[in-house]
């Protein structure tokens, strides 16, 4: 842990020595580290819980594995792998903390606004499912599209409403009429 602290100190020092845009980079590296520690910590908790749950199922014998055997092996292996990741991360930057994922646009810095947008977006998706169950596909699809456009805040309301209505009708025609998918009708139809 002491090594991790000294790594952060080194980063902070390096950022202060570079005059231009480096401080932003330094902030990003530190916050990405904290974020990662939290995520890996949650993963460790999940793997421990999974392993404990696996113990609740019958384990059988070595030649006759039962419902709990395979999950127990996987849970134990997962816990060990996550612990190794945690230890390596604590030891300082390594290839997995510094190298970019092959498709990691979402790991670009976006600030607090970006996180709020993601949260609102997810709430919108949950709202869609709740509406799908109660009000049906027509209203749910209209609302989800409208809220996505509202979150983008890039065009006048009449354009947003028009696009939401056309998507509502379009999705009905594609799924219900063309593909014969019985979409939830709720109280609207």
């Amino acid at each position: 842990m002491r090594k991790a602290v000294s790594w952060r100190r080194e980063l902070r020092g390096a950022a202060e020595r570079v005059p231009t845009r480096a401080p932003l980079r330094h902030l990003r590296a530190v916050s990405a580290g904290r974020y990662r520690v939290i995520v890996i910590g949650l993963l460790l908790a999940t793997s421990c819980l999974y392993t404990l749950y696996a113990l609740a199922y019958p384990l059988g014998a070595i030649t006759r594995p039962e419902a709990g055997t395979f999950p127990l092996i996987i849970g134990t292996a997962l816990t060990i792998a996550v612990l190794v990741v945690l230890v390596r991360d604590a030891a300082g930057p390594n290839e997995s903390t510094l190298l970019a994922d092959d498709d990691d646009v979402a790991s670009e810095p976006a600030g607090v606004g970006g996180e709020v947008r993601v949260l609102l977006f997810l709430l919108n998706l949950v709202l869609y499912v709740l509406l799908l169950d109660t009000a049906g596909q027509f209203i749910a699809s209209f609302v989800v599209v409208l809220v996505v456009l509202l979150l983008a805040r890039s065009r006048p309301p009449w354009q947003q409403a028009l696009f939401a209505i056309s998507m509502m009708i379009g999705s009905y025609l594609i799924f219900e009429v063309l593909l014969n998918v019985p979409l939830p009708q709720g109280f609207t139809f």
Partner: protein
Amino acid sequence: MDFSLLSAALADLFTPSALIGLLVGTLVGSLTGVLPGLGAVGAMAVLMPFSVSLDATGAIVMLTGVYIGAQYGGSTTAILLRLPGESSSVITSIDGFEMTKRGRGGAALAISAIGSFVAGTLSVAALMFAAPALSDVAIRFSAPEFLTLAVLALFALSRVAAGSLALSLAAALLGVALSTVGVDPISGLPRFTFGIQELSRGLETATIAVGLFGLAEILGSVRSKRHQFDVANVRMRDLIPSREEVRRSGAPILRGSGIGFLFGLMPGPAAVLSTYASYGVERRVSKRKDEFGRGAVEGVAGPESANNAASGGAMVPLLALGIPFAAPTAILLGALTLQDVAPGPLLITQQPVLFLSIILGLYAANIVLLLLNLPLVRIFTLLLRVPQDFLLAGIVLVTLVGTYAVRNSIFDVYVVIAMGLLGHVMIRARIPRAPMILGFVLGAVIETSFSQTMALSGGDAFYLLHRPIALVFAVATVLVLVAPMLLGFVRRWRAPDIPERRREEAHETE
């Protein structure tokens, strides 16, 4: 060659279902490649629920069309804007964009499309011969062989995925753990269902893939608010390459095809890795090494052929063994499962028409993509001007309704949202997602073959020694784990000698 089978496969390919799949897949793939964001695997995942409405041939042709189409489309923006739509087009953007700056962007696009087509043709031909040959061997496989092969695939992908081995393995094991949710295949006991009825059916591959790749990419776009692009104008007459450019591209296309196909046979992100390998080879064998990085046509022809050939190569282990070696083929396996088709050694002997129609579909996708991409290059690049918010809202709705449509389950839509969040968190924490989807898809195979192997072994710890093929896979797994560490150790051990040797060499020259 049995011509009755061939004609039956052709008849299968000319059904409305397969033709719709072909057209939709290639179009969506090209668009996905052109528009940065969703990615080939994400688009495949989003379209996967729709594949249920098609027959098996249509479903596979549609999804492979997306995969190959994304390679074609990705090169368009890589060459014209230095904006790779796909990670497999990153290498192309180096020399491709330099050619655009010199006014040869159209020629680079044409060479890229022709190279992709030739590579696609060659890889489909190789697939036609390699898959049955491998399947003849694989027909002798039993539980221990499938267990060790699936474990090898997981470890090998974890080794080449971004990040450390432990992290990739953790992601793969998380996928395997998710696959254990539902009824135990041996005893029928419900596991990890927490009293939720819907969970006893297990989690659907489509739901996991759509969330982990499709929705996670959408969340990434929401977070970073991507902007519009200015696009260079390309006229039809600009697309004609010069005689010199064609002459210089021939050998790189053939070499790229070979490299790509071989990489496709191996676990890992074959399309991406093969482009780097092809670029390296071209640079090494070229007489104009100084031109690389400044607009060498070989730097476009080789990698573009390689990434397309890799798509064909990746189909060999999927169709012959039933084991996917990368995320795109894991999604294809999920789509085949939705169609009640089990790929593997028996597919070629028991369903030869389906096997042939899949191969013909792959080839047809290459033809359609060549016909689409060259004349419509201007339209595809203009799509970069489509308002991103409209595009995003449309994709979100299609993703949500498509997920619901797979099993008519509202619960699945909740799962897809949860998986989307998980995928987003994984991207931000730099945890690779490809091993996770592979782990999820292979989880059931590993568990079933593990139980059978344990029963067959009768408690014998050296059982694998009596199964030579399984032993080879087990040794290969150990090598995948240990070899890079040993190589690193040897390199570090030899490193101090290098300056010493240089001093000796300098002394000798003096």
